[in-house]
């Protein structure tokens, strides 16, 4: 193949898109993605939607089929409001981790934007969903749509049977704990909607029987076993609070347990996305950039196309500095794109510095290396492993230690030789979800007494819980239906306890 074909055979020259043109661009991009770069993707389902439908998709947090809940209405209302007032633009696309991979394209986009979005979503994100270990382990692209259908129908049936307010209150409580409904170690396995329904019925009966056993009040034998009485329950602290409640909350109805499970499952499905923002966006941006440049090399697109594309690409990867009024932290598109580009550069044209920092990577095959990076890391480890001094210099990164006990902010590391490692460590921690979310686990349940449950929060660097915690505690109480205590510990000392009883929420300081 000649790098620069002199005969131009542009796919299109205008900015108007049409369905045949979309198909042609898709075929051309696909040819490059699959045959030149060997990207492994799910089949694509490209859906063209209107702005209003895009707002719908926003509101349902990216689920193509969602159950009904007021909070989605709230999101919709606020998106609609911001959009109509011109305070925000809508994303050009939304892509769903499913098989086939569903990508929504906005009808307002120009042809260039549609091609950009196809390259970004249908080949970038798509190959990420299919290749990254977290998505492989935790989500099942082929069964998610089925599961969402099951979830919606199940919740609708519950609403018919038990009333909307009842179901809504339960969902409120579940949503409050959604981030604590994630299994970090056990792998869920794929099942179809029909299977799910059958299993749900079995589960309902089996689960209730088990609960009844756990909470039975009639003594089993005349001599209660002392050891058993003193045995801790749960035997080890549990981090998946929703799972623990689903299995052990004393007074929940079977259908309520099932709804807990649904929320938990959906949280689980989104968990990898929360852990791979930088990588996922960086990977997709890297590939739309690479793929569209190849289109240009093959003389399939015009100079005008490239200019429009580069303008919008530049806007996407723009990183405002910390002192700009619209600074909102590090732009995951910018960082991710820069890092993948940098990996490619290190492979192709390593400097002495790169050879020192990345001896294995320097000079190796760039395609294999970026794929390896995409497949085997999450944001936290990706930064830890691949953030090069060059990037830190280009971003002019610096770390700030904000300690409430001190009067001033302290500048930690900056982008110099002595600071690179610490800077990289700090940034990596910043993407570590378990450090960003308060560490709260189920500690103990009083099985024979007042059936109260104790949760433990272990403070990280003295960071307290936000005030909204007492509201969350009410939700916990709603689910558990007996007293709930949340103990806050720091360095093996109990600092305070928030208790939610029938009388309300009280905070005690120890």
């Amino acid at each position, binding site marked *: 193949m000649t790098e620069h074909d002199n005969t131009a055979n542009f796919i299109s020259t205008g900015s108007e898109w049409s369905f045949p043109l979309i198909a042609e661009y898709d075929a051309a991009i*696909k040819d490059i993605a699959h045959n030149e770069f060997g990207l492994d993707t799910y089949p694509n389902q490209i859906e063209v939607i209107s702005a209003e439908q895009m707002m719908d998709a926003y509101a349902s947090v990216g689920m193509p089929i969602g159950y009904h809940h007021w909070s989605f209405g709230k999101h*919709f209302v606020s998106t*609609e409001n911001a959009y109509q007032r011109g305070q925000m633009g809508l994303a050009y696309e939304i892509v769903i981790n499913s098989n086939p991979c569903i990508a929504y394209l906005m009808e307002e986009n120009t042809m260039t934007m549609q091609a950009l979005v196809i390259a970004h979503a249908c080949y970038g994100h798509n190959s990420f969903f299919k290749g990254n270990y977290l998505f492989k382990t935790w989500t099942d692209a082929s069964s998610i749509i089925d599961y969402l259908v099951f979830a919606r129908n199940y919740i609708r049936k519950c609403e018919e049977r038990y009333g909307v307010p009842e179901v809504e209150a339960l969902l409120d409580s579940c949503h409050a704990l959604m981030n604590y409904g994630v299994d970090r170690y056990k792998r869920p396995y794929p099942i179809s909607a029909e299977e799910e329904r059958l299993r749900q019925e079995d589960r309902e009966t089996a689960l209730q029987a088990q609960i009844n056993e756990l909470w039975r009040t009639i003594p089993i034998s005349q001599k209660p076993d002392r050891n058993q009485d003193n045995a801790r329950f749960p035997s080890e602290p549990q981090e998946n609070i929703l799972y623990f409640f689903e299995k052990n909350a004393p007074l929940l109805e079977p259908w309520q347990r099932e709804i807990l499970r649904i929320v938990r499952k959906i949280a689980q499905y989104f968990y990898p996305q929360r852990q791979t923002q930088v990588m996922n966006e960086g990977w997709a941006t890297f590939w739309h950039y690479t793929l569209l440049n190849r289109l240009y090399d093959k003389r399939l697109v015009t100079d005008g196309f490239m200019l429009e594309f580069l303008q919008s690409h530049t806007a996407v990867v723009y990183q405002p500095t910390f*002192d700009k009024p619209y600074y909102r932290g590090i732009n995951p598109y910018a960082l991710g794109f820069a890092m993948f580009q940098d990996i490619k550069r290190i492979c192709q044209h390593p400097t002495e510095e790169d050879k020192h920092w990345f001896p294995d990577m320097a000079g190796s095959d760039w395609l294999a290396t970026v794929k390896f990076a995409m497949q085997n890391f999450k944001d936290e480890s990706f930064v830890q492993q691949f953030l090069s001094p060059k990037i830190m210099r280009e971003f002019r990164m610096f770390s700030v230690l904000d300690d*409430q006990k001190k009067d001033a902010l302290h500048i930690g590391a900056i982008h110099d030789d002595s600071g690179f490692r610490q800077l990289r460590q700090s940034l990596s921690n910043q993407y570590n979800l378990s450090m960003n979310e308060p560490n709260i686990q189920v500690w103990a349940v009083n099985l024979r007494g007042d059936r109260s449950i104790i949760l433990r929060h272990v403070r990280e660097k003295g960071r307290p819980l936000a005030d909204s915690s007492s509201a969350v505690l009410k939700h916990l109480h709603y689910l558990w239906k007996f007293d709930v205590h949340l103990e806050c510990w720091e360095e093996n000392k109990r600092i305070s306890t928030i208790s939610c009883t029938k009388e309300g929420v009280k905070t005690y300081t120890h």
Partner: protein
Amino acid sequence: MSYIIDRRLNGRHKSMVNRQRFLDRYKSQIRESVADAASKRSITDIERGESVSLPTKDISEPTFHHGQGGARDMVHPGNKEFVTGDKIPRPQGGAGGKGNGKASNQGDGEDEFNFTLTQEEFLNFLFEDLALPNLIKRRLAGIETWEWQSAGIVSEGNPAKINIVRSLRAATSRRIALGMSKRRALREKEAELALLLSQDVCAANVARIAELREEITKLKLRLEKIPFIDTFDLRYNHHIKVAKPSAQAVMFCVMDVSGSMSQATKDMAKRFFLLLYLFLKRNYEKIEVVFIRHHTSAKEVDEQEFFYSRETGGTIVSSALKLMNEIVTARYPSDEWNIYGAQASDGDNWSDDSPLCQKILTEQLIPALQYFSYIEITPRQHQALWLAYEEVQAEHPDHFAMQQIIEPSDIYPVFRELFARKPA
């Protein structure tokens, strides 16, 4: 292979259910906001959506997250002059305030959650729990408002309306009924024949067998002759004409434009009329509005003149009521129209005139009217007209209502009071 699908045509308003649930959940707050807006708004734009704001803390969804305090290490881009070990004063707005991407995603950082109600939703909240009094729909004499309604099944009708299922069902039952005795006889004869055939052959038997065989053939023939379907079986769908209740209403806006009515008073009156108009519009398919203004004499005018032209002079209210009565008699027969009257005035009247007003109302207008509401826009003491009207109200509490309005913010509450749904 990629599938490309055009989804633009289906699945609009996918979020309507969720949106509605959100509105339902914060009904009381939104209602307050709407009532506020209704009393503050300028006159011309009452029929548009309304922006509503709710306190963010009321509608937040709580989760466990870190609060302020403790130590926190953040990496930021764009260093210009900092070197390791620098100490910089904490920026205003608290710890970690600058550039915390996570927090700004969740908290919005605003105290108010703003959104816009559609016009439909706005009016729903505006007129929630209000009802038109005396909503006895009058019937029309004319044929225009007849409506065809399905009225069951009949045995006569034209062929185009044959109901096949019912006709065949009738045929089946007729065939069963008519063949009953014959089939019974047939069964008996066949049994007898079978018995005879199994016995020894003798002369009597042979004769009987022949006889039975003949009878059986005859019976079978007769059974076959029962017609499969008969005109008698036919059933027809029946439709009848039903008189449709009149869905049209006329609203009389009566306003005093004498010298004592200032532009501000008229604006208030206009807002009231507007609310009434919007409200009626939601209840009737067709609505006509008649504007009558009066000082010492009354005149039917168009909307522009009604609200904006100025007149001076004394006040004779009965002139307007007389004119209204004439118009009702001439153009709006009460068996065809639902008639609503609304009168706004500052309470001034020629003192001898008030008893006459009372008389016209009770004797002529109220029998023809669905509802007559009177608002007096004045901060002053009530005068003769009010007193006279009070008697009318005592006499016809179901058809007459009156309220006083002092300032613009009273309009909506007074309106609600006039049209509050009364327990039946």
